[in-house]
């Protein structure tokens, strides 16, 4: 297990049950600042649940989650403190497969929503900040456009800008390109590569293996709610030590890459 003292995320013995279904079976790992960690694994293995537990979109059943100095330990029956959950959420940005842009707000409106409503910034400050992040994803000119007029790739880039504008310490991506037409995947991956290059700490669930190979500092293979194997892309892709990883990669790389 890779452990270090200056980890920005530290997860210890995380369990999640959905009713009788044991989806995360005692997962532990750490993420260092500026690290790009990519989670791979077959559909239903618990990757999304793992990300969603980190910012408490799903309430973990048991375990400890620490993010940049805030820590929550839970167990069945424990009532969580909403303030602590909020503190952790503010340290993480989340990007979803389905973008989830707010359709009643313009691109800029989407990006400044958190700044105005959560961070209580003034309109002017928020707009300046929002424009900065729209430019960052290359969509400044879509400032006043409503989501319905944007392509999938543009929507996802706006969604990324919306998360980035909150200036979180970690970005979580749950299959950010899986809902996109093939020709639109590249523009989103390019934005993510740029973020990786700038040293953004990221946890990414993806099936884009060559992208993973390019940006990941570490790859984690998840199977049936457990971390089966982890290591540098070189090792995981070329010399996986676990049979399950090997089988997954072999079948995966030789079949359709869609989930």
């Amino acid at each position, binding site marked *: 297990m890779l452990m270090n003292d200056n980890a920005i995320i530290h997860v210890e013995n995380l369990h999640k049950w959905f009713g009788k279904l044991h989806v995360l079976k005692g997962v532990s790992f750490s993420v260092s600042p500026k690290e790009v960690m990519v989670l791979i694994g077959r559909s239903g293995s618990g990757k999304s649940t793992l990300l969603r537990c980190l*910012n408490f*979109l799903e309430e973990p059943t048991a375990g400890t989650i620490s993010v940049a100095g805030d820590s929550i330990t839970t167990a069945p029956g424990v009532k969580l403190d*909403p303030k602590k959950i*909020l503190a952790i*959420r*503010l340290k*993480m*940005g*989340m990007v*979803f497969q*389905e973008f*989830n*842009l*707010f*359709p*009643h*707000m*313009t691109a800029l409106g989407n990006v400044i*929503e*958190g700044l105005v*409503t*959560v*961070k209580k910034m003034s309109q002017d400050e928020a707009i300046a900040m929002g424009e900065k992040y729209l430019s960052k994803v290359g969509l400044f000119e879509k400032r006043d456009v*409503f989501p*319905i*007029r944007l392509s999938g790739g543009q929507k996802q880039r706006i*969604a990324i800008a*919306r*998360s980035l504008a*909150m200036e979180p310490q970690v970005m979580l991506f749950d299959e950010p390109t899986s809902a996109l037409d093939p020709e639109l995947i590249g523009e989103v991956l390019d934005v993510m590569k740029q973020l990786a290059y700038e040293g953004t700490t990221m946890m990414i669930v993806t099936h884009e293996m060559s992208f993973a190979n390019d940006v990941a500092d570490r790859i984690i293979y998840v199977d049936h709610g457990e971390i089966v194997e982890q290591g540098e892309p070189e090792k995981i892709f070329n010399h996986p030590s676990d049979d399950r990883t090997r089988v997954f990669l072999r079948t995966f790389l030789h079949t359709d890459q869609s989930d």
Partner: protein
Amino acid sequence: MSVETQFPSDEPDIDPSMGEALQAHKNKVRLIHTAKIASVWIALVLILSIGLLQLRFDPGYVGEHYGFVMQGVLTTLGLSVASIAIATILALLGALGRLSHNSIAQGLAGFYVSLVRGTPLLIQIYIIYLGLPQIGTQLQSLGFAHLGKTLTLTAIQSGILALSLNYGAYMTEIFRAGIQSISHGQREAAISLGLTEWQTMRRVILPQAIRIIIPDIGNQFIAMQKDSALVSVMGVWEITYRANRFGRKDSKFMEMFILAAALYWILTIVSSWIEERLEKRLAHAYER
């Protein structure tokens, strides 16, 4: 020239003016269709009018007294607008209650909806107008003078309260369905930005839900304008009460009630028109 011969074939070179010609033809067909429908309406109104005139319907009487009945339009409108406003607030609270994880809020909201939807509006009006003062008197004799007095409501107050409570219950279900129709991802995106549950509701869910339910709210408003006729039983001087007063005195029921019916009809037509405008305005963000 028939449309079929003009219809674009699979040939690669299509005359660009063909699209315009097709569109013009379509518009013409639509216009004729609308004109035919309008003629049916006019014919029906004419037939009914002639029939009534043959049966000694007295338009002169309507002419003399329409002003008196018209004065009730403002009362009817006032009652309906005040009641729909309060009902909307009740419905929002009701829906939040029904969707809440809090068992007390859920219980309260469920009880409210069930009780109000399970009883006739007329009975609710009687209970509020005639029943409550009875309890008020009792309370007054027990020493709760102030509380007792507030339970004695004027006819207008009773009408607004009854209509608000009644429509609030029906609209609770409309709001609930509207809120539930917004995809879960919207809530998740808002929550992960750090919005609280209430901020998420106010900033993200409700604006989208309200756009969806505006037509239903409009329908409720129209239904309420007509149901407000029931408050005439308390002697509120709205359209129905005024029509009834004269109709009874001079045995001109048909004249007065047809006038009243026409006034309600016009009110509802205007209301639907306003609702459609509002719907279009709110659709702005969703137009490609």
